């Protein structure tokens, strides 16, 4: 029964159920064909379309790990797509690789500046993260519209199109970019001390600072990371549709990304985080959206369908819910009670200890 209590069991279970229900409704759902050296099929499509959300959720995980939140990711996506499309439109030869790479670099650089701005507001000025990033969320879309002049910019550039719609080694490029980003983040947070520092800042910024951690610098860094990843996601989105739409790009993605992070087992209060969980959460949400279409849920009820699945998933993940509902059939209830008792013990011990410490303080 231990596997039932693993925090990623329920998201994974929902993913499997969604995939199986797809199979029932469309026969060749699991078929993957090789055509012109590219892999095609619904599963590959899920990988390809998950890429932007995975990237955004990745950045969001780091921000949430420090106890913050970033609402501006959708606007940052719009900004990066808008700038890239504007600059490519100005190129004399949009099919040359060099200039396009330069444009991509410029777009991501602008996003990093946006992230620096968020980080400055949160870490240096000490504004609450939800409000600090709300500013850029509101103004960012305006900036994106300002860049495109309020229109939808269409671009025709072969190298730019590769980012969102191209294939490399038979796999979608966007999927490869997302994989690389995940690998980079895992390497940085789990192979260096960075992950530990993040969790420490999320646990208590003041205590971390007193312990000699530059918590301010760490906080700024995570917002820069989040904006950078959101910028790449914006490039993928805009390259996939070969245009920059400042209103549609990244619309509501901040909520989906936060949902993905929480489904993956990272608490919004900061501290411990799980990158694998966030990636799984993002894939579940994308699959949910794709399934709603392929199963034939009418457009009006798509949102309702999503709500029901999210509610079921949240309840299944809640240990208390499982203990209360299925308690009589399993040993889990006893486990939860035991855990409660232990926690109470620890608290009592803490209180006693702090009493002792206090009486030791010289008056």
């Amino acid at each position: 029964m231990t596997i039932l209590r693993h925090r990623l069991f329920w998201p994974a279970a929902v993913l499997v159920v969604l995939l199986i229900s797809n199979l029932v409704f469309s026969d060749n759902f699991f078929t993957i064909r090789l055509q012109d050296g590219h892999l095609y099929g619904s599963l590959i499509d899920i990988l390809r379309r998950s890429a932007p959300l995975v990237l955004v959720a990745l950045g969001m995980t780091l921000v949430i790990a420090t106890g913050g939140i970033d609402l501006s990711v959708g606007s940052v996506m719009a900004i990066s797509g808008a700038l890239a499309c504007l600059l490519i439109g100005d190129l004399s030869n949009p099919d040359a690789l060099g200039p396009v790479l330069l444009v991509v670099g410029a777009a991501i650089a602008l996003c990093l500046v946006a992230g620096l701005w968020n980080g400055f507001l949160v870490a240096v000025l000490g504004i609450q993260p939800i409000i600090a990033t709300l500013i850029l969320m509101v103004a960012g879309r305006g900036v994106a519209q300002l860049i495109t002049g309020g229109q939808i910019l269409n671009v025709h550039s072969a190298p730019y199109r590769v980012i969102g719609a191209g294939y490399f080694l038979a796999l979608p490029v966007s999927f490869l970019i997302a994989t690389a980003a995940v690998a980079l983040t895992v390497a940085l947070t789990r192979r260096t001390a960075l992950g530990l520092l993040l969790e420490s800042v999320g646990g208590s910024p003041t205590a971390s600072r007193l312990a000699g951690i530059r918590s301010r610098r760490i906080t700024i860094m995570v917002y820069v990371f989040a904006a950078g990843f959101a910028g790449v996601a914006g490039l993928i989105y805009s390259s996939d549709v070969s245009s920059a739409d400042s209103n549609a790009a990244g619309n509501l993605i901040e909520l989906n990304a936060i949902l993905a992070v929480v489904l993956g087992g990272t608490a919004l209060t900061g501290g411990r985080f799980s990158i694998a969980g966030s990636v799984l959460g993002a894939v579940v949400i994308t699959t949910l959206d794709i399934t709603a279409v392929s199963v034939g849920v009418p457009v009006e009820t798509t949102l309702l369908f999503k709500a029901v699945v999210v509610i079921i998933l949240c309840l299944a993940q809640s240990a208390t819910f499982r203990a209360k509902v299925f308690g009589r059939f399993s040993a889990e209830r006893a486990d939860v009670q035991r855990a409660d008792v232990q926690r109470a013990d620890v608290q009592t011990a803490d209180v006693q200890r702090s009493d002792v410490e206090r009486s030791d303080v010289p008056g």
Partner: protein
Amino acid sequence: MIDVTTPPATGPKAPAKKRHRVYLPTTRHVPVLATLALLIVMYSVGVANYAGFGDTQVLLNIFVDNAFLLVVAVGMTFVILTGGIDLSVGSVIALTTTVTATLLAAGWPAGVVLPLVLLIGTVLGLGMGAVIHFFKVEPFIATLAGMFLARGLSLLINRNSIPITDEFWTEMAQKRFRFGEGVFISLNVVIALIVVVIAALVLAWTRFGRNVYAIGGNADSALLMGLPVGRTRIAVYTLSGFCASLGGLLYSFYTSSGYSLHGQGLELDAIAAVVIGGVLLTGGSGYVLGTVLGVLVLGLIQTIIAFQGDLNSWWTRIVVGVLLFAFIVLQRLVTRKAK
């Protein structure tokens, strides 16, 4: 053992005597006072720059146009004071207006529809509160699911905008309280102000209000003190659900229509208003009066943009962002200095 009963020696006491006449606000009041001061500055700048900005009616119109937001933000204040968040309020407004318009169009009497729609939001809030308390689901996620649910339901009922032609509704929408030539407030404002007063009284002088602050300060301590944490927590989400549906009702008076896309992004406006008013998102500190000021700040920003008049849609967004930024940074600096 060292004697800990002796109070530690304090520093030099002399300077305190000379400055006792200077008014120093309590630390808890500083954010609200800072917001008020900046609001006045912002208003004066508006009066100085735009002709006709100083009219009483311009000020009253801020209330008329934002009465529903005020009601929603009051409910949100309770939730945020306990350290939670309610993302469902915008969707509850959509659901309320859609259900109202649909039922009225189907010929239901206003006397039945009115309590029924108020009940819908309240029950939804109760449900979310119960899930948050009993199953320990994060408030952000539980109310996000509630947001999807309410918006999904209203889309399911009708995707189009439905006009409201009911007599009672039209009468309520057109009711005006006049104070003189061209100076008036609508019924919505009166309802909103009543809600504000009741909320402020409840929060300041009832056991329930104390419990809300205690839970926001530290939920574990509140539990150990024997306070009804669960009941209070469920109650604040129920209250927020009620306020959201009442806000929806005011919105249906205000727009005379029901639409499943009403109130999009309103939850963020409400949260912004509450936070601008000096409530901490971690809970335990803040006042309803601050929330009122927060709503006024957002309303004043809209008014300034309307008076400016020559801004297109993207410059409007940028200016809203810049004004919000300027306000929050100034507030932050003032508050920090006072501490």
